[in-house]
């Protein structure tokens, strides 16, 4: 087959331009901008003044940024443990030979395909609602007093809980595809050797899923560092310290929010760079921890 250079060029050009305009140029500019003092996001480079690590000192010295990092870390760890464990549990159950496997798999994944704004609204306006909400109805059924799920104390956990519910299905699908890739004869041999279901899970399934678990941890990290929508839904008007996350901090800083007297795009860029470095660090660490996990079988 002849190589048609003109065709290769014209066929690749639009994709190349998209990549450069949408990703390469902006990422580079954001990194550079994080070292400059830039007030408005639309300021031309002529108005930038070099600031060294000033933006980084500024954000790490800011109480609300540190709160947002703390919240993010909590979502990452607590949310991550619950989401990945629940996803693993669901994946094991769904592949255990139950009837209606396809139905259960589809139903558990469903929250991922609907608008997250709609899903969050369902949780806020129904499940956690004070007067007629599901949780308070159940609480009253058992003779308890109504709980303010969306009050300052519980809001963060209400948000994290509903976020977990919305995320489990996706990770379950990843684990299911991993489990279904494990050859069935391994389990048959183990059964003949007298290994119980639990033993089989810990000695066969889990070790062989290392690569998939690694992938899921990386995805979860990207997911939590870019966490934004759920905070916006749980604190729609004013940013609150109970639900603030770094992207919200960045958003308020760059595009204006309550309590921000002076916009600071340079600091916003620094937040972006910090979050990206966190993602890269998590990726490299899991890559190292799960080294040699891409087993062939």
């Amino acid at each position: 087959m002849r190589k048609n250079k003109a065709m290769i060029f014209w066929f690749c050009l639009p994709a190349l331009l998209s990549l450069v305009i949408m990703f390469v140029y902006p990422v580079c500019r954001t990194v550079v901008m994080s070292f400059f003092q830039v007030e408005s996001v639309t300021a031309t480079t002529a108005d930038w003044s070099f600031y060294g690590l000033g933006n980084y000192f500024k954000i790490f010295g800011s109480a609300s940024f540190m709160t947002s990092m703390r919240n993010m870390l909590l979502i990452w760890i607590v949310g991550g443990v619950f989401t990945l464990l629940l996803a693993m549990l669901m994946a094991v159950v769904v592949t255990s030979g139950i009837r209606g496997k396809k139905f259960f798999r589809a139903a558990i994944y469903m929250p991922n395909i609907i608008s997250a704004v709609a899903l969050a609204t369902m949780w806020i306006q129904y499940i956690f609602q004070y007067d007629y909400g599901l949780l308070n109805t159940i609480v009253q059924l058992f003779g308890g007093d109504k709980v303010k799920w969306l009050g300052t104390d519980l809001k963060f956990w209400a948000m994290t809980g509903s976020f977990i519910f919305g995320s489990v299905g996706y990770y379950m699908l990843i684990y299911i595809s991993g489990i279904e890739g494990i050859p069935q004869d391994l389990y048959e041999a183990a059964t003949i050797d007298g290994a119980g279901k639990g033993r089989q899970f810990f000695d066969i399934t889990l070790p062989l899923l290392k690569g998939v678990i690694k992938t899921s941890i990386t995805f979860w990290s990207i997911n939590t560092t870019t966490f934004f929508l759920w905070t916006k839904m749980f604190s729609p008007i004013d940013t609150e310290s109970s639900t603030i996350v770094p992207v919200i901090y960045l958003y308020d800083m760059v595009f204006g929010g309550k309590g921000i007297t002076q916009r600071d795009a340079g600091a916003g860029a620094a937040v972006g760079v910090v979050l990206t470095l966190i993602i890269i660090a998590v990726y490299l660490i899991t890559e190292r921890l799960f080294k040699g996990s891409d087993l062939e079988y």
Partner: protein
Amino acid sequence: MKKINWKKEARLLPGYLIVGVWVLFTAVMLFWILGASLSTSREIYSGQIFKFESGFHWSNYADAWNVQNVSVFFGNSLLYSVISCVGVLAIAAPAAYVLSRWEFVGGKALRIGLVIAMSVPVIMVIMPIYSLSVQWGIKGRVLLVILYIMLRVPYTTIYLLDFFSTLSRTYEEAAYLDGCSGPNTFLKIMLPLVQPAIITVTIFNFMSVWNEFFMALIFTSSESMAPVGVGLLNIINSMKYTGNVGGMFAAVIIVFLPTFLLYIFMSEKIIAGVTGGGVKG
């Protein structure tokens, strides 16, 4: 129908309970929202929603659609999703094809760049994009559509690339001998062959644009160009003053339906696509 092996089913009982409770919870939530969307605010507050004593209040839907502007948000989202899906294919499919077929200078770099771009967080690109759009004077609907298209190019190209690589080269050789030009071969022979992949990737692009929120929030300057996500947030915020709970739930159902219906009919294809495409990369 196989005979039910009760002993086996009994052993699986804990499993049934776990997934059963999870799915039941989801179902209760959806049915309640549906019921509430057909009730008056007073019925909702007094917990009377499934009796429908005052009948079905379809007026909630009319109210959401007309008064609360859901029709506008819905139209916008449809417009953004459909144009973006077509536009991204026009850019990604040709690139995926030549990348899968020939080795050329910069080809590998482009491919790696696209893979990396798939995991670049939006926050790293949003600020320069914002200033570029102001500088070039692009705004509103046009800007959003262009951004959605470019945002989906990496994923779509990589997804289609995998499928083009599975096709045999004999098709092109035969076409070449018949005097068919390169671009023509691509359009008339190769593109139809990857149709299943195009459908799957388009479903994903559609759902992703339909549900997109962050960019829409930043780049929609007026309510008239807001897509459903941003529109719904506005409705909820104003509900505090209007007190129209039923209308708000009707809006939730309207926003929820399109991707949900798509899912009902294509769940197998969608689920296969989730773990088939990008995940292993």
